[in-house]
């Protein structure tokens, strides 16, 4: 089999075929890391490009993500054994009081499929929990999401807490969500604002290079 078939299955949002093809590839003794790097990741990368070009939309991304994770989860045990080395660590969550997580989940799959290690704290996450996770996981990037004007103000509080606890200088903070803009990011001293999921990976890579 050709690993391109896995890429195509992800692009075609075909969860069942992705699963079947990843199992076939494992049975054919393909290196799990190759299956990931030459099958699943290029598939999701292509999906991201289609999203940027406005050929794919939210439903397509949701279905392609399902296909990606169906394959990815099959590989996870092998990748651990193969001491799979990922890029930098990204901690992602939706702030407290907000449970809208479709956007966060889309950004997560884009980041994960770009090879970053993603720690997803989920949605409606209290500030204390975020601070604790920053202390223990020591991520390079903290990605905060909020869809509500009532909860977005917490992002500033999180940054203030990180400053107070001397954690700010070691981490880059990016924010995203419908009510936010660049001006808000500047006001709360975030390092970057992502207008949509497609730009999140570029933004993270740019910040890490700096």
């Amino acid at each position, binding site marked *: 089999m050709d690993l391109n078939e896995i890429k195509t299955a992800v692009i075609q949002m075909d969860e069942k075929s992705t699963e079947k093809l990843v199992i076939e590839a494992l049975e054919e003794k393909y290196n799990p890391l190759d299956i990931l790097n030459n099958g699943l990741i290029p598939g999701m990368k292509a999906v991201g490009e289609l999203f940027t070009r406005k050929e794919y939309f*939210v*439903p397509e991304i949701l279905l392609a993500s399902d296909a990606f994770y169906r394959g990815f989860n099959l590989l996870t045990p092998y990748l651990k054994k193969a001491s799979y080395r990922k890029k930098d660590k990204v901690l992602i969550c939706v702030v407290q009081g*907000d449970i809208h997580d479709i956007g966060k989940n889309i950004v997560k799959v884009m980041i994960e499929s770009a090879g970053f290690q993603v720690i997803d704290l989920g949605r409606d996450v209290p500030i204390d929990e975020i601070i604790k996770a920053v202390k223990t996981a020591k991520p390079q990037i903290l990605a905060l999401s909020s869809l509500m004007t009532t909860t977005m103000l917490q992002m500033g509080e999180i940054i203030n807490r990180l400053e107070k606890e001397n954690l700010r200088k070691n981490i880059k903070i990016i924010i995203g969500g419908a009510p*936010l*803009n660049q*001006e808000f990011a500047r006001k709360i001293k975030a390092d970057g604002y992502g207008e949509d999921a497609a730009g999140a990976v570029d933004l993270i890579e740019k910040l890490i290079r700096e």
Partner: protein
Amino acid sequence: MIGADHCARLMGLNLSDVCRSGERLAGVLEYGYNYYNYDMVLVFSDPYVEAEAMGCSIVYSPSPIIIGPCPDAGEILDKNREWNFPEDSALNVMIEAARILKRRLKVPIFFSIKGPFSLSSFLYGIEDFLKLIKTAPEKAARFIHKTNNLLLKYIEKVLSLNINIFIGDPMASTSVISPDDFKRFALPPLRVLTGFIKEKDAMLGLHICGNTKPIIKLLDYLGVDILSLEDITPKTRTLRMGGVSTRTIFNDSSEQIKAEVERALKKPPLILSTGCDVPQDTKPENVKSLIKAFYEIGGCK
């Protein structure tokens, strides 16, 4: 566009308390109208009022957030049942508020109603519904049809008050679904609602959030009276409403708001407004800046 959430905040009240009584809801909307002195009143409490009435799980945090689909959604679809809004629901509060405002105010009153695509996604579960339109399109279309029948019954009741309708269909935005899916799933039920409302001689506004450029012609020829859009740059035969970004009014300064008003007023005819409803915690001085800039630049009063 200012709804009860922002007006309640102006008065230091909780939206969840306000939405329990038609008198209270009318009171906060009237307060907002008098406070800012705008030219039309929108009877709008929150985006999930219809979904909540149909049994979707909602939490107030402090704004309402939908956390679960309508428990009947599967059965309605599989057993081919029709559904109805329950007799005793928050929708009656909205209708009562509209009745009071119609009696008290001399400006046009618009009644906010969720669009069929958005309400379908709330009732079915947003992520699941967005997937359904791709994996089982016929099923999704059938579900929307049932939602639309439900909305028609509701709209008939609202129109008996002799007021106008404003449909908000945020999930139908081409920031969310493709223009093809808009054409297939969102447009046909909107056409049905538009025909029904225009037959009754009420004014009809339509709001769709986010990017609407790829579908602007379809919206323009839908037959509504007002198109409320985030992006008012495309020329339309339908009267546009908007001009100031919701993000700007919430996040930015008076100068930036004034600059957007100035740009917007160069594209008449236009109902000057925010591109979407004013967020509840928006600084009142920012809303005042918008109105002040309009009078200064537009010189209408």
